[in-house]
């Protein structure tokens, strides 16, 4: 397949299409700009959330994830995602089912009831890797029309893009580079900050179990980014976006302080640097607002 004709099945999940469609619009628009098409996965469901359904019943989590994988297999396409939760579920399910024929047989018995089958013929890609390795930094750089030269970006990886290393295969989960590279391609700087590698606090049903505790966890992370003189935070996860953006409104209710620290999915940040508008990127429809510094 040539680069020009590359097409992915876009697994939307829940939060990207149903809460932050700006993430979907930004990702589709930029991929198209580089000749990469995305096709909708008709009938796809929740991935389902790995730390949540994986925590409640992994024997339900797995066939629901396998059904989503089977949809892409029927389309004869590889998958791209914009959420670490979706990545965590689909990539791990694919990994486990390929490694264990008995498990695959058991799962396919359930899917067979409605005529579907997991074969193991698709592959799950995070959009972060598609941007970094398929489009590539050089081609991205050529399209930057509004450089972010004086912007300090706090990079936040979330958890399930890098970890567990042995399943994800993107190298070290401590010594990171992919998101830093993508921020720096716009001219921005990516200062180290104390809680850079820390979780947003939402996963594993934690946000649902005790939201105030989960917000305090996030508050500490944001404070450490602000103390490092960062202007905004970029990340590769729609679920983190919900916590980090909507969570700031909830934090105001819980703690009486509103940070308005700008949160952007990485494709939205690159979109701004490519000259796309706040409106086109859906950044005017979220809790945190974009400072002039990001909008030259």
């Amino acid at each position: 397949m040539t680069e020009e004709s590359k097409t992915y099945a876009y697994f939307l999940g829940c939060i990207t299409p149903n809460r932050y469609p700006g993430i979907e619009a930004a990702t589709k628009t930029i991929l198209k700009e580089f000749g990469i098409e995305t096709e909708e996965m008709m009938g796809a469901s929740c991935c389902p959330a790995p730390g949540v359904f994986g925590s409640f019943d992994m024997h339900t989590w797995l066939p629901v994830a396998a059904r989503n994988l089977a949809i892409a297999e029927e389309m004869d396409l590889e998958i791209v995602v914009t959420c670490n939760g979706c990545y965590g579920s689909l990539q791990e399910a694919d990994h486990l089912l390929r490694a264990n024929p008995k498990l695959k047989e058991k799962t396919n018995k359930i899917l067979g009831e409605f005529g579907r089958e997991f074969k193991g013929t698709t592959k799950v890609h995070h959009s972060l890797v598609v941007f970094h390795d398929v489009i590539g930094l050089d081609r991205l750089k050529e399209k930057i029309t509004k450089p972010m030269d004086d912007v300090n970006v706090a990079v936040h990886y979330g958890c399930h893009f890098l970890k567990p290393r042995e399943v994800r295969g993107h190298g070290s989960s401590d010594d990171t580079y992919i998101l830093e590279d993508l921020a720096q391609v716009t001219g921005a700087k990516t200062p180290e900050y104390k809680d850079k590698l820390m979780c947003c606090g939402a996963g594993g049903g934690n946000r649902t179990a005790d939201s105030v505790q989960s917000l305090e966890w996030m508050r500490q992370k944001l404070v450490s980014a602000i103390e490092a003189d960062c202007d905004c935070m970029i990340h590769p996860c729609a679920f983190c976006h919900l916590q980090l953006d909507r969570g700031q409104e909830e934090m105001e209710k819980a703690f009486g302080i509103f940070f308005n620290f700008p949160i952007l999915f990485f494709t939205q940040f690159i979109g701004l640097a490519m000259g796309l508008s706040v409106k086109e990127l859906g950044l005017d429809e979220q809790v945190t607002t974009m400072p002039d510094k990001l909008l030259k």
Partner: protein
Amino acid sequence: MGTLYEDIIDYGGEVFGEEHLETLRECVQCGKCTGGCPSGRNTALRTRRLMQMALVDMREEIFNAPELWFCSTCYTCYERCPKGVKVTDVIRTIRNLAAKEGHMSVPHRMIGVYVMKTGHAVPIGPDQMKLREAVGLESQPPTAQKHKDQLEQVQAIFKATGYDAMIDFDWATMNLKGMDKGGKK
């Protein structure tokens, strides 16, 4: 029902492989998991203690510990364990066993309700459809929520695995039993 350790190996082993969870036996209580735990710095979650409770068969204590649910599954402990204990997957398996025995909060059970009703843990509504239109997308994506026959496939999985019974889901009201008359979450 065996010991908690045996149940962890049996229930989780089928998905992760038994050797994966048998790493629990290697725990030497060094505490590196607790030291790096982002939850532990704010909550009562002590991962080292959970591992020990699992090893000495403190089934009821661990199932009733609220902090069992304060792990965000961030995998920091899993990555750093010097003995290779697959800590996060051990915790997820313990949670599965706890949930099976009825230790599951109503808000956690509600996440299952949303997926069984709509195919999504976070479903779309009219306001979000407008957000989609504002960025030039079709008002509703072609996911399971839009296509009834596709949603029925998702529902069939939840029936086949008994997830519906586990959370006490009522197919007549499409809600938790006893929650249909505006019951509180």
